């Protein structure tokens, strides 16, 4: 089976349910390796019950986002040292 690997562009709609700002041009710093990259360049695995976003450099987990059908969200961002948003 082909690996279901996408990128930050594909996750943008779901991410914006939480962030309310255009997310693909937000610049994040990976807490694992220190790489600095736009969200659109990240690696995304979206076929799980939630979304897993990984660093394009070291493949470390940047964040995980899951939600239920009732409008509750769980966002884990341990892998993001800093997120720069332009609003």
């Amino acid at each position, binding site marked *: 089976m082909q690996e*279901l*690997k*996408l*990128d930050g*562009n594909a996750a943008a*709609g779901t991410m914006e349910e939480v962030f*309310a700002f255009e997310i*693909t*041009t937000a610049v994040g710093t990976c807490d694992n390796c220190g790489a600095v990259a736009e969200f*659109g360049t990240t690696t995304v695995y979206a076929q799980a019950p939630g979304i897993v976003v990984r660093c394009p450099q070291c493949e470390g987990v940047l964040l995980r986002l899951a939600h239920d059908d009732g409008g509750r969200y769980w966002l884990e961002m341990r892998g993001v040292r800093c997120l720069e948003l332009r609003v």
Partner: protein
Amino acid sequence: MATPITPRRRGLTPNRLSWQLCDVAELVDETPRVKTIVLDPPQWAGHKAGQHVDVRLTAEDGYQAQRSYSIASPPEDEHLALTVERLDDGEVSSYLAEVLVPGDTLELRGPIGGYFVWEAALGGPVLLVAGGSGIVPLMAMARHRARAGNRTPMRLLYSARTIDDVIYREELEALASEDEGFEAILTLTRAQPPGWSGYARRIDADLLAEVAWPASDDPLAFVCGPTAFVETAASELVELGLPAHRIKTERFGPTGG
């Protein structure tokens, strides 16, 4: 019934995405596997070339399936057009390509994205590299350039399996013949028509070296296609000396069904 949504605001006001129901105005057969869906969203504050929408289907029992589709139409168009490839076993794409008819409604939200976007003001020269249906957001960029009367040199390298799989073929030929600043270069990877003199192999380092502008011209590259295609093309462009920040990528995954 359409759900009213708040008009898009600018600046510090949160820019909430809302789902809306759109009338399907027209369906256009592009290739045997690909259709363009022309829509009239009730609330649309405009988009940028390269952005996408999320489409959501809801079954009678409440089951929902959601996919992202690139916008094919340029910002200058009155209608919103999506071009969708029917994937085998694709629960959303097969509905869009086989069941949907004009007069139906489709639920979507958008426009989404800002990273994989080209606006005339960004300049160039612009290299577009498309694999299969990855042509769709790049076509929005080519259409935007033409409709805006922009003169930025733009070169498209488009990899398709056969000539019949080339989406927008006639329009691409017309754009290239009418406008010296726009070039469309095809490579047909599986079969070629008799007398074909163009490229006939998958995109590789030599092919990109022949087609791409030299790094000294500081080109801006947009690469869209299946994940493996995108990663190959982007890494070859880096090898050619393009800085990574001048190479924008968007992957169409097999989850796109």
